[in-house]
């Protein structure tokens, strides 16, 4: 692969994000805002720990869908932007290159560093992150968890496959599913995600 991930990270992490006159950050067709990582951890963990198992599963599913929407539309907005066409597209020769480029782009948002472990073209993507914020906090505050807690990376991993190997945008969302097979909140040394095609 010919993707220069460091170059992509450098391009998208430099400079200030564009704002309108009212201070709202709008970029790649989405509205973005910063918040403390502790904020997201606390809001989500408290919600799922305080409700019934059934309600917890419901909000986990909603979170997964919210992140999938977020990733699918943000990454598509990025890959159709002028900067991408000028700086990133020349590196992309194959669909697998595009997956790698999108993952590099993900590595500028402050959520921990995501890497590819395995990519089977059109079928399967395995990713890994060793420094996601939330799992260590779950372990610290609630002890070992019965299942993975990294909704962000799980949905992101599915979204790369949806965008690159699914039906043309915007119809490809949800083509792939993703499971978190290892999570630091469960005691594993890193978090790992496996995206595969949903059964047709």
């Amino acid at each position, binding site marked *: 692969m010919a993707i220069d991930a460091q170059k992509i990270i450098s391009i998208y992490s430099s400079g200030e994000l564009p704002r309108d006159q009212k201070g709202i950050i709008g970029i790649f067709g989405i*509205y973005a805002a910063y918040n403390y*990582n502790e904020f997201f951890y606390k809001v989500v963990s408290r919600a799922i720990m305080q409700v019934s198992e059934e309600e917890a599963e419901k909000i986990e599913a909603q979170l997964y869908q*919210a*992140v999938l929407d977020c990733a699918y539309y943000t990454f598509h907005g990025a890959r159709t932007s002028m900067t991408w066409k000028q700086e990133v597209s020349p590196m992309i020769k194959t669909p697998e290159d595009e997956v790698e480029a999108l993952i590099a782009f993900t590595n500028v948002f402050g959520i921990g560093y995501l890497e590819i472990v395995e990519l089977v073209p059109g079928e399967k993507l395995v990713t890994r992150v060793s420094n996601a914020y939330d799992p260590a906090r779950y372990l610290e505050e609630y002890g070992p968890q019965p299942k993975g807690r990294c909704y962000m990376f799980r949905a992101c991993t599915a979204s790369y496959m949806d965008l690159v190997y699914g039906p043309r945008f915007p119809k490809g969302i949800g083509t792939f599913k993703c499971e978190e097979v290892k999570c630091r909140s469960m005691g594993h040394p890193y978090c790992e995600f496996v995206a595969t095609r949903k059964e047709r």
Partner: protein
Amino acid sequence: MKLSKFVFTKKFYPEKNLIEFEGSLISLHCHHFNCGLLKGLEELKGIDGLNLFVKTTEEVYYHFFSDYLKRHPEFETIEDKLQVASEMYYAFGYGLLDLSNLTENGGIAKARSSYYVTAWLAKYGRRYSPVCYFTCGFIAGILEVIFNKSLGTYRVKEINCLIVGDDYCKFEVEKI
């Protein structure tokens, strides 16, 4: 808004994909996620998800704004502290928030723009009730730090909101 007096230190660590803002980790998220999370909480059965959202926001900003002021002892006056809170809110992308009329006893804060209004409209369209729950928690948390009060001292209610057609968002702050 003048953005000359206060400078926030933000550092990106490319090898870790971490962003440090004044010594604490932050991350950037889009309206699909932020509004999806809020909507999920609003629809939760069994607990008051919106209250959880507001109280957690209050607690998080109580903690981090307190840390921020400890790092910046040069901000001594109430006026400066209110202004830097407003500019932090702006720096994070939440819009224009005027806190200048607040006192130890509470008062009124106004926002001429709101991230959650813009974001909710983009994601779900019009709604008929206020949506700036984040701002309510934020105001309570930073006021408790500025006036050296304990968590839970202030109750903030959004009584006007841009999303329902008002000219600006208006927050009534009451000392409990």
